[in-house]
C-alpha cells in the first residue's frame, strides 16, 4: 500500500505535518504550561516558554478555594448517568431495528436523527418552566434526563450501525441449535455487541461531558458541572490566567485522554459507519 518515497520527501512531510500539528495543539499546550506558572509570570508581557519557576500552587488553590471536586463529581455523574440511561433505552431499540427491521425502520432512524436538528432554543422555555415548577432547576436528575434525551438519537444510531455488522447467519445457527430468544441475546449477541456498546458509551460520555447549552442554562451552583465552573471564570476572574489554566487543564484532561483512546471509534461512531 505504502508507495516508495525518498527519505527526503518523507522528512519534508514529517516537518510540515509536525509544524501544523504543533500549531493546532499549541493553545492546549500553552494552557497546560501556564497552569504551572505563578500569576505574575502567566500575565507577563514577555512570556517565557520553559524557563520559569514551576509551581503547583494554582492547582492547590483551585481545588481548595472553589470546591472543584464537587463540580468534577457533578460532571462525572451527569455524563455517566445520562450515558447509562441512554444505553438502557437505546440498546433494545437499536437491537430490534438491526435484527428485526421493518419497512418503517429507515423512516424511524431518519426521524430520530432529525430530532437532533431541533435547535435547543426551540424547547428551552418549556423545559425551563417545567423544571422550575417541578423544582428540578439546578438538579443533577434534571440534567441527566435532559442530556439523555439530547444524545439519545446519536446513541441509537451508533448502536444500530455497530449491531448491523453482526452477521445474521450466526443468529440463525444459534436458533437451529435450539437457542431461545433469551439465551440467543445473552450468549450469542451480547459478546459480539460489547465492543460497539463500549465505544458508544465512551463517545457519549465525551459528548455529555462537554455539553454546554443545557448545563449553562439549567444549573447555577448545586448541580453545576465543570462547563459551568469554567464559565464562571469569564470575568473578572478570567484575568487570573494561571488559575484559569489550572482549572481548564483539570476540566479537559479526562476527556482528552478518553478521546485519544477512542479516536478510531470516533470516526465510525460519529459518522454512523458511513466513513471507514
Amino acid at each position, binding site marked *: 500500500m505504502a508507495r516508495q518515497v525518498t527519505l527526503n520527501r518523507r522528512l519534508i512531510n514529517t516537518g510540515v505535518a509536525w509544524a501544523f500539528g504543533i500549531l493546532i495543539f499549541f493553545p492546549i499546550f500553552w494552557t497546560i504550561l501556564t497552569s504551572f506558572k505563578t500569576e505574575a509570570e502567566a500575565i507577563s*508581557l514577555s512570556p517565557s516558554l520553559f524557563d520559569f519557576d514551576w509551581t503547583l500552587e494554582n492547582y492547590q488553590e483551585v481545588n481548595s478555594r472553589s470546591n472543584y471536586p464537587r463540580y468534577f463529581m457533578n460532571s462525572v455523574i451527569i455524563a455517566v448517568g445520562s450515558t447509562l440511561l441512554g444505553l438502557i433505552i437505546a440498546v433494545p431499540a437499536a437491537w430490534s431495528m438491526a435484527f428485526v427491521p421493518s419497512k418503517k425502520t429507515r423512516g424511524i432512524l431518519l426521524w430520530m436523527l432529525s430530532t437532533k436538528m431541533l435547535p435547543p432554543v426551540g424547547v428551552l422555555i418549556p423545559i425551563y418552566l417545567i423544571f422550575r415548577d417541578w423544582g428540578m432547576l439546578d438538579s443533577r436528575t434534571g440534567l441527566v434526563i435532559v442530556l439523555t434525551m439530547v444524545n439519545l438519537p446519536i446513541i441509537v444510531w451508533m448502536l444500530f450501525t455497530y449491531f448491523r455488522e453482526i452477521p445474521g447467519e450466526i443468529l440463525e445457527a444459534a436458533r437451529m441449535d435450539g437457542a431461545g430468544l433469551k439465551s440467543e441475546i445473552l450468549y450469542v449477541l451480547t459478546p459480539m455487541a460489547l465492543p460497539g456498546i463500549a465505544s458508544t458509551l465512551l463517545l457519549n460520555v465525551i459528548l455529555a461531558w462537554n455539553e454546554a447549552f443545557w448545563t449553562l442554562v439549567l444549573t447555577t451552583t448545586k448541580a453545576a458541572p465543570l462547563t459551568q465552573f469554567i*464559565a464562571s471564570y469569564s470575568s473578572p476572574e478570567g484575568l487570573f490566567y494561571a488559575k484559569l489554566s489550572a482549572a481548564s487543564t483539570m476540566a479537559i484532561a479526562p476527556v*482528552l485522554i478518553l478521546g485519544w483512546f477512542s479516536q478510531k471509534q470516533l470516526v465510525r461512531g460519529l459518522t454512523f459507519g458511513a466513513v471507514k
Partner: protein
Amino acid sequence: MSTTHSRTAGKAMLSPAVILLFLWMIVPLAMTLYFSFLHYNLLTPGTSFAGIANYQYFLTDPAFFEALGNTLAIVGGVLIITVVGGTLLALLLDQPMFGQGIVRLLFIAPFFVMPTVTALVWKNMFMNPTNGLFAWLANTLGATPIDFLGHHPLASIIMIVSWQWLPFATLILLTAMQSLDSEQIEAAEMDGASAVSRFFHIIVPHLARAGTVVILIQTIFLLSIFAEILVTTNGGPGYASTNIPYLVYMQSLLQFDVGGGSAGGIVAVVLANIVAIFLMRMVGKNLDL
C-alpha cells in the same frame, strides 16, 4: 428470518425510545408554539392572547436580521474553513512520514476540549489586546495589537469555533482518504495526470461521502453555537456577535419575555428545518440503510 414472535418483541423493544423521543420533541415544542401566541412575561403576572404580535415584534426587530446573518456567517464560515482546511490537512497527513500516530493525536485534541474552556482560553490568553499572546506577537513584530473580540467579534468567534471543529473534519476526511485505493492514483500518475487533476478527479469525488457527513454533523452543532458566544462576547458589542440561539436566550431568560422568546424559538426551529430538509436529502442519498 423474522417471525411474528420476534417482530412483536422488536416493537416492544423499540417503543420506549420512540415514545420518549417523541414526547421530548412534541410536548415542549407544542408548549413553545402555544406560548409564542401569548403576552407572557415572567416579571408581570398573568397572560393574555397576543395573536401574531410576538412574531411581528421578533421578525421586525433589527436584532433578528443581525442574528440571522451572524448565524449564517458562523455556519458558513466555519464550514468553509474546516472542510477546505480539513481536506488539505488530511492530504498532508496521508503522506508517508515519521510519527504519524502522534501528529494525529496533536491534530484531533481541540475537538475534545470543552467549549467553555476553548472560549475562555482564546479570549483571555490569546486574544486579549494587552496580555494576550497575539498582542505579544504583534508587539514583538513591531505591529499594533488587534482588539480581536472588541473590534472583530464575529470573525474571532468563527476563528475559535473553526479551531474546535477543524480536527473533526480532518480526522473524518483523513480516514476516508486512507480507504482510497492507491493503485488508482498510481495508474493516473502513469497516465500522466498532474497532481492537481489527480486531486480534483480522483481524491475529491472519493471524499464526497465523508464530506457530506462532516457538513451534516457540523451544521447540527454550528446552528446551535451558544457557549462560545456567552463566554467571549455576550453577543456584543451591540448585537455584532449574537446568533439566533443567543438572541432567544437573551429574550427569554434575561428579559423574561416568554412570549417573545418562544416566537424566536419557533423561528429558529423553522430555519433549522429548512436546513434539515436539504441535509437529510443529502444524507438519505449518501447513507445506505
